[in-house]
Every structure is written in structure tokens, then in C-alpha cells.
């Protein structure tokens, strides 16, 4: 029956190469994504439900959830504002060195996160370039939630910039102009006309940045210091458990991060699909 369905769909398809390309894609997805996940589930299966529950509700771990969620939340909000601004500047204005700034936006993706972490830790430590200036003001970045949020924001800013930028480029200048000819103030035009246009991209970008921050490890650990109950993030807990050869425990914590990320990504996708449908007149 499946073969029948397949052969029927093959008849109707005009684009060539469907079978081959889908086959390769599925193989790739299985090898690179699903296989490691299976081993994770395999590790988990050694635990009973009560053991699993006990592991993931450890108070130290609960505190790390809070730290991670809070840090990622602050980082995502910061990126939403700053990333939108960067995308706006890069699309709407011409200035010397624009290409360079544009290229710099991708640096956090290209830079090994550990390098970013060490750099940030050095800069913001109490005798670092910036830390030294902030110290007299009573602001310490290293070993506090500010440092965690900062590191998370650093590694995830490209998500917002790169999702908002193309949408902003597609926004015809006429739409702004139309709002102005109708007497709208700049603020009103931005809120009612431009922001709704960018909204899906901005939410997606912010969501991706948030999800990325939840799992961030390399960039955060150096600046966070990892004080239990205070600046310990969830991904660090996985690392700690691995060092103690507690593979089942590490898997349990990892499964929480994974489940949260997947659920968020799925939610973003569903929401965006609904929104875009409306813009295209319900025809998807």
C-alpha cells in the first residue's frame, strides 16, 4: 500500500530527484541527529521513573534551571532590542564600513565559544579592562547572572539580526511612506506598520536566541564561575555529572534541556505558520 502511494505520488511529481534527495536527507538526519538521540534515550532507559524524577528535581539542579532560564531570558530580550536595532541600521542606512559591520555580525557563530568565554571573562574580571571601570560603580559582571546573560547574548545575537534583516530588506519603502502620507508620526508608523511586519521574524529570532542560550556552555562557564545554587547553569550540570562518570544522571539532565528546546522550537514554528498564513490570504 505504501509502495502504491509512493508510485502514485511519483507520477504526479514534476521536479526530478525527489527519491534520491529525500533518501540522502533522511539518512543524514538519522546518522547525525537521531542516532545520538537514541543513545541518550538508551542511557535514560537504565533509570526508573522515580529515579528519573529524583534526579531532575535535585535542588541544586532546580536552582540551575532558574539561573539558566533567567540568564537566557535576559539575553534573549536584550538581543531582541539590540538585534532589531542592528538589523535596522544595516538595512536602512548607508555608512562607510557597513560591509565590515555586517560581516562582524556573524563572528559569534564563527568564534569558538570557549574563546568568547575566556575573552569575556578576562575583560570583565575585577582587574580586566571593563571590569576595572565597573568595579567602583558596584557592578560586578564576572561570577554573577549579568555575566551569564552577557555571554549568552554574545553567542546568540546573530540569530536575531540574521532573521530580521532579510524581512526588513523586503519591506518596501512605500509602506513607510504610505503611513507618513496618512499623517502618522514616526512612532505610530513604527508600532503599527513596521513592527507588525517584522514581528514574526523578530519572535522567531528571539526564540532561537533563547533556545541557543539555554544550551550554551563554552562561553558561559568561564565568566559564570559555577558557584552551586548561584551561577551554575544546566549545561554545566551535565558536564559535572559526566566528570563523575554518572552517565545516566547526565542523560537525565540533558533530556530536560533537549525537551525544553524542542518544545520551544515547535511552538515557534506553529505560531509563525499561523501568522504567515494570514499575510498570504489564508492560502498558506
Amino acid at each position, binding site marked *: 500500500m505504501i509502495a502504491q502511494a509512493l508510485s502514485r505520488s511519483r507520477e504526479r511529481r514534476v521536479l526530478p530527484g525527489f527519491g534520491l534527495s529525500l533518501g540522502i536527507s533522511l539518512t543524514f538526519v538519522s546518522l547525525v541527529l537521531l542516532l545520538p538521540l537514541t543513545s541518550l534515550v538508551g542511557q535514560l532507559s537504565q533509570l526508573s521513573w522515580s529515579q528519573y524524577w529524583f534526579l531532575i528535581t535535585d535542588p541544586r539542579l532546580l536552582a540551575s534551571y532558574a539561573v539558566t532560564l533567567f540568564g537566557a531570558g535576559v539575553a534573549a530580550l536584550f538581543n531582541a532590542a539590540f538585534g532589531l536595532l542592528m538589523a535596522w541600521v544595516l538595512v536602512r542606512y548607508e555608512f562607510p564600513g557597513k560591509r565590515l559591520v555586517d560581516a562582524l555580525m556573524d563572528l559569534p557563530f564563527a568564534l569558538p565559544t570557549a574563546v568568547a568565554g575566556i575573552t569575556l571573562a578576562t575583560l570583565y574580571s575585577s582587574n580586566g579592562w571593563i571590569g576595572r571601570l565597573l568595579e567602583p560603580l558596584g557592578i560586578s559582571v564576572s561570577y554573577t547572572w549579568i555575566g551569564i546573560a552577557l555571554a549568552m547574548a554574545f553567542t546568540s545575537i546573530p540569530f536575531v539580526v540574521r532573521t530580521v534583516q532579510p524581512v526588513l530588506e523586503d519591506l518596501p519603502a512605500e509602506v513607510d511612506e504610505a503611513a*507618513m502620507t496618512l499623517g502618522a508620526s514616526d512612532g505610530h508608523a513604527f508600532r503599527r506598520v513596521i513592527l507588525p511586519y517584522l514581528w514574526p521574524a523578530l519572535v522567531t529570532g528571539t526564540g532561537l536566541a533563547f533556545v541557543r542560550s539555554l544550551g550554551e556552555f563554552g562561553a558561559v562557564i568561564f565568566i559564570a564561575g559555577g558557584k552551586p545554587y548561584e551561577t551554575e547553569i544546566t549545561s554545566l550540570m551535565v558536564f559535572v555529572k559526566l566528570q563523575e562518570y554518572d552517565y545516566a544522571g547526565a542523560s537525565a539532565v540533558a533530556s530536560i534541556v533537549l525537551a525544553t528546546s524542542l518544545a520551544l522550537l515547535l511552538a515557534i514554528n506553529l505560531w509563525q505558520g499561523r501568522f504567515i498564513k494570514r*499575510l498570504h*490570504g489564508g492560502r498558506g
Partner: protein
Amino acid sequence: MSIRISQIDKRYGRTRALEPIDLDIHDGELIGLLGPSGSGKTTLLRIVAGLEQADGGSIHFGDRDVTRVHVRDRRIGFVFQHYALFRHMSVFDNVAFGLTAMPRATRPSSGEIRSRVMQLLEMVRLQDFAQRFPAQLSGGQQQRVSLARALALKPDVLLLDEPFGALDAKVRQELRRWLRHLHEELHFTSLFVTHDQEEALELSDRVVVMSNGRVEQIATPDTLYRQPANQFVFEFLGDVNRLEGDVEDEVLTCGDARVAVPGVENGRQELLLRPHETRLEEQPDTRAHLPVSVTAVVPVGAEVRLELEADWLGEPWLATIGHAEFERLDLKRGRRLFAKPSRLHRFDTPRPQTLAPLATS
């Protein structure tokens, strides 16, 4: 409200987009800005709207000097070629946008906004589409929404940038007629840009023909067609046939073709004529001997359109003749005949001249 444009000019870097331009538009007049692309017509319209700044000159709406007034305070309505509707808002919200964007102190109540918007939607015959989104409407409907939106604030002047340019021929025809009616009813002062001669001639009270940032002629459609100020206007307003040759003793010769050109001095001359200004005969006569062969026949519409070629012609001529004439001459492709121009136009003289070579003097 009348519009007075004086000495408006504009450059982009080193290129001159507009030579200093003067134009007076009377209250309630519908003016078409006509020209090929790059003629500066859209630039002029955008300067009047305040979407672009002129380098010099001034613009008055009535007695109000708006030269330095921001676009949002000029009280204009603007219709864009590609509608520029807000895609995420319903038709109702699009039309209501200008009213809801007003500062709280002067903003009408939501009930008033509602009734005003519904009244506008009724005017553009879209009252049943209020809750739809722009993407669910056809191009013609979207442009009507855009017009209703522009009229919502009762603007002093309505500016339209190629309003029908993105629509197909039939819808364009319909919208044109409809805009004409709307203008007769509401009498807004209006300026619209087009590159379509027919559209300009059909809609406008007066047409401003532009090329290369200059005004070539400002006239009523009738005058423009009958008394073009120069060769550019003549050529831009319709199909043109060219006849070039040496004149001696009031006879123009070009290869084995010759035609009487009374009153034309000796030397190399270029004469122009419209497709309907030539007749076809089986025999030449003493005043015109212009052998041509028919290479294409299009018997569609009120007239038959022909393409004529000859070795003395640089580019083929177009001719239109009546259907009766078509049958009398038994026209088909490859038929050899003689053209007899009823009128010839000259533009290289200080004032345009029209000759009638076949008239019995």
C-alpha cells in the same frame, strides 16, 4: 485646493532630475504628468507630496506655502503604483489608519471612524470586503482600497503615482472610468503620473508632457494631440511615420519615391505623419509617387492596421484605413500599392508646420 509649483528643481549628484519647473493647477483640476521613464515625472510628484525635497523653488497649496512642510502635515493623499497596503491589517483597518493615527485630541470617536470608513468603502464598492486582508483581494480591488485610504482624511490634493500601471488592461480601463466619475463627483484637485498616453489623454483636464526633467508642453488633451509643441510631443502621443529626403523645387525625393511638399525650402528634410494620415491607391499621381508593399495586415477593431515597407524607407510605415477601403483595395500581404500622405508635419522650423501635399491649391 489649487497647487502652485514655481521654479522647482532637483539634482541627484551630478545628474539633473528636474530643470526648474513652473506649473499652476487650478482647484478641482485633474492633471496628468506624462512622459517616458526617467523624464522626472515621478520625482516631481514626490516633491509635491513631500516625499522628496527639491533643491530649489517653492510649492503652494492655495495660499499655504508647503515647501518646507513635512509630508505628514501637507494634507495630501497618495496612491502608490503597487498599492502599498498594510498587509497585516484588514481592509477596514487600512482605510481607518489615517484617522486612528491622529493625535488623541483631534481624533474622531471610534463610532465616527467606523461610519466614515464604511462610507468610503461603499464609495469604492468594497463594503462587503471590510474584514478581508489585502492578500485576499485582486489587484484592482487593492488599488481601490488604497484610494479609499488616501481619501479618508479628506486631503487637499490627491496624488497618484502610476495608479493603474500594475493592473491588466481590462481592469485598468474600468478603474480609469471609475476614477473619472469619482473625480466628477468629488472634485478633488489631483495630479497623477503615467507613461500611458491614452490614459493621460482620457483622464486629464490638462496634460503635462515631460522629458529629460523638462516640461515639453502643458495643454488640454485635444490641443496636445492637434497642436503638439514639438517633435517629442508629437512622437510621444502616438505612432509616427518618417519620411526623409532631399527637397528640390518643392518636391521631396528619396530613392524612387517622390512627393510634392509645397512651401518647403531646398535641402535635406525630415517630415512626419500619423498612420491615419496616409491613403493607399493602386496608381500614383503627379503629386505623390510613393511605392510600398504591404507586409502585415491586422483587421481587428474599427480600423485595419497595416505595415508598409519599401526600399526607400528606413523603417516600415504604419497605416490605418477603414474596412470599406480595405475591401475595395483587396488588401493582402505582399500587395504593392502607392501611399498618398494627406498631411505632413515639420518640426525643424521655429514653429511646427503642417503641409497638405494632396490639397488642390
